[in-house]
C-alpha cells in the first residue's frame, strides 16, 4: 500500500506491506532511499504495541491511534497518534486522491472550521460575506468557564456562519466556512 503522510510541515511517502509471517514492513521516504522498519504489531486491550524487528529488534513502543474527523482538504483521513512522545496528528492521503485534487486546481476550495470542543457560542464577531484576515477572531466559544476565540486560519471571505450567539455546539460541529482569497 502506498500512502502520503503529512505531519506538521513534513510530508513523506510511505510504502506498507503485510508479510506472510504476520509482521509488517514499512518504508518511510522515497523508494530510492528512506528508512525501512520491520514491525510486529500486537493489540493489548485498547492500546497497541509496536515492536521493531531487524537491527533494533526488541524495541517496544506503546501507542493509541484514533481517527478524528478534523481533516484538511485533500486528506483521506487524519489520525491522532498518542505515544511516549505525546500526541501527534498525522494526515494520510492516498496518491490517487492527491492526483485528483491537484488536477482540480489548488485555489478552489473553502475551508470549514469546526468546534474544537463542546461548548456554547457566546459571541459571533463577523457577518457572512465579511473579508477576514488570518488570525482574526470569528466566534467565541465558552466551556468550563473559559472563553476561547476561534480564529480564521487563512485570509479570505466568510462564506458561511453555521452558528449564532447563545447556541450550544458539540466538538466537531461546523462553525464557519472561509473562502480563501487567491
Amino acid at each position, binding site marked *: 500500500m502506498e*500512502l502520503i503522510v503529512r505531519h506538521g510541515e513534513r510530508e513523506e511517502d510511505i510504502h506498507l506491506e503485510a508479510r506472510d509471517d*504476520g509482521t509488517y514492513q514499512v518504508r518511510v521516504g522515497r523508494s530510492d532511499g528512506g528508512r525501512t522498519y520491520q514491525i510486529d504489531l500486537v493489540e493489548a486491550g485498547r492500546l497497541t504495541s509496536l515492536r*521493531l524487528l531487524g537491527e533494533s529488534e526488541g524495541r517496544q513502543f506503546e501507542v*493509541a491511534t484514533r481517527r478524528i474527523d478534523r481533516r484538511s482538504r485533500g486528506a*483521506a483521513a487524519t489520525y491522532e497518534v498518542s505515544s511516549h512522545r*505525546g500526541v501527534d496528528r498525522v494526515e*494520510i492521503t492516498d496518491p490517487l486522491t492527491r492526483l485528483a485534487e491537484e488536477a482540480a486546481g489548488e485555489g478552489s476550495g473553502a475551508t470549514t472550521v469546526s468546534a474544537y*470542543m463542546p461548548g456554547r457560542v457566546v459571541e459571533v464577531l463577523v457577518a457572512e460575506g465579511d473579508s477576514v484576515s488570518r488570525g482574526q477572531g470569528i466566534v467565541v466559544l465558552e466551556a468550563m468557564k473559559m472563553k476561547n476565540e476561534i480564529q480564521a486560519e487563512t485570509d479570505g471571505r466568510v462564506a458561511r456562519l453555521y452558528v449564532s450567539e447563545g447556541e450550544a455546539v458539540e466538538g466537531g460541529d461546523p462553525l464557519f466556512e472561509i473562502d480563501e482569497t487567491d
Partner: protein
Amino acid sequence: MLVANRGEIAVRVVRALREAGIRSAVVYSDADRAGLPILLADEAHHIGPAPSAESYLRGEAIVDLAVRIGADAIHPGYGFLSENAEFARRCEEQDVVFIGPPSSAIAAMGSKIESRRLMIDAGVPVVPGGRDPLPDAEAALAFAAEVGYPVMLKASAGGGGKGMRMVSSPDQLETAFRDARSEAEAAFGDDAVYLEKFVDEPRHVEVQVLGDAHGKVVHLCERECSLQRRNQKVVEEAPSPVLDGSLRRRMGEAAIRAAAAVGYTNAGTVEFLLDKNHDFFFLEMNTRLQVEHPVTEMVTGIDLVQAQLHVARGGALGPEFDDVSPRGHAIEVRLYAEDPARGFAPSPGRIDVLRWPEGPGIRNDAGVYEGAEIPIYYDPMIAKLIAWGSDRDQAIRRLQRALAELRLEGIASSVPLFQRILSDEDFRAGRMDIKMLERKMEDGSWAVEPATADADLPLVAAALAHFARQQQVTSIAGGSAEDAAHTGSRRQWRLAARREATGGAPWS
C-alpha cells in the same frame, strides 16, 4: 452523611466514609448522572440541572435534602459551598453537622480587611505596611524606614498595576511617590497612595492546621505550592524544599495562632508568602479541606478526612497529632482537562482510554473512569496524581515514571507540562517562586508545543492504523488476498519468532 460536591473530592470523601463504616449519600446534577462518586456511594440524589448555580450551589435545597434523608452531617469538599458562611449557618440551624469550622470562623477569614486585623492582633506576621493613604513624601519616607526596603507604592482606588511603583532605596522614594500619585490621579481620579513592604519572588508555603472542639489546635507541617498559573496551584509538595525544623516550627506556631484567633475547629490551611530571607507573611486562610491535602497525608500518615470526621463528632486530638514531622516527600500534580499546547483551552469530552499508573509510591485521586464524559460546566480538574518517595528526588522520579505510565486518550491534559516541570533543573533543585511557572511558560522553557515532526514513529503508527481500517472495509466488502495476509497477523503470530535483520533503524 451527605457529600455536597462532585468529582474527585466527592470520591475522596465517599472512600473515607466507607472506611469509617458510615453510609454515604452524594448529590448530582444532570451532567453528573453517571459520575464516579455516585457509583461508589450508597445513595445518590439528583439536585438539579447542570449549571452549578442550579445544582451544587443550592445550599438551601442541599440542607433540606440532608434533613429529608436523615443525614446527620454534610461534607462540603472544597469549592462550591465549602467557604460559604451562610450555608454553614444554615446547617447549624437545621442541626445538621457541617464538616468544617463554625460559620463565624468562615466569615471572619472571608473578609480580607477583618482577617488582616485579626492576624495583627494575634501576632501573626502580615505584609508590613498600611492601607491608610500617605499624606506626603515625608510620611512615605518615615513609613518605608519602618517596614524596610524594598517597598511597594500602591493606589488606594484601584489595581491593574496603575499607580504601582517598586522602590528599593530612600533616594528613589520621593520621585516615585510623585509619579505614583499622578498616575493614580490619571487612572482613577483619586491620587491616594499607600505603601507596603515589597515581597520579592516569594514562595507560597501553607500550613495545614486541625482544631478540635475542646480548644486544641495543631499544625501538620507545610506544603510548598509556589508553582501556580493564574493563581491556580499546579504542582504541590510536602515538605517544602526550603524549610528546616526551626522555620517549620515558627510557621506552624503562627498558623496555630491564626486559627486560634477565630476559634477555628476542623481542618484548615493558613497560607503564607515566604521571602528569600525566610521571612513569612500571612496571605489568607482557607477554611476547608484543600485540593492538595494528599501530600500532607502521605508525609504525616494522617488521614485528614478521617481526622475531620473525628473532630466533627467531638473527638479530641490525641498526642499522635502533636509535633508531627514529615517523613519522606510527596508531590502532587493536578490533572486538568485542558490543552497546554493550545493556551490551556478546555478539553471536555469522552475519556476513550484511561490507564492509571500503579505500583510503589503512587496514589491516584480521580473523579473519572474510562468511558466517562467530562462535562463542560465545571472546573476542568479531573484527577490528582500523587507520588511519595523516601526523599524529594525519589518522589520526582516516581512521579515521572507514573506520568510515563499514564494513558489518557480522548481529551487533552496538562501531562506534557508536568513532564517539563519535573525535568527542569530549577525545579529539581527546589528553586521556585509564585511567578516561576508563568515566567518559564513565557520564556519558552516550559512551553508545550504540539509535537513536532522529528520522528517516524507517529507516521508509521498512523499508516498501520490506516491500513488496518482499509482492510476492515475490504473485508466487509467481500475479502481479498491482502485481507487474508492481514488476518495472518493475528493467527500466525507464533511465527513472529522468525525474524530477519532488514536494516531498520530506530526512529526515536
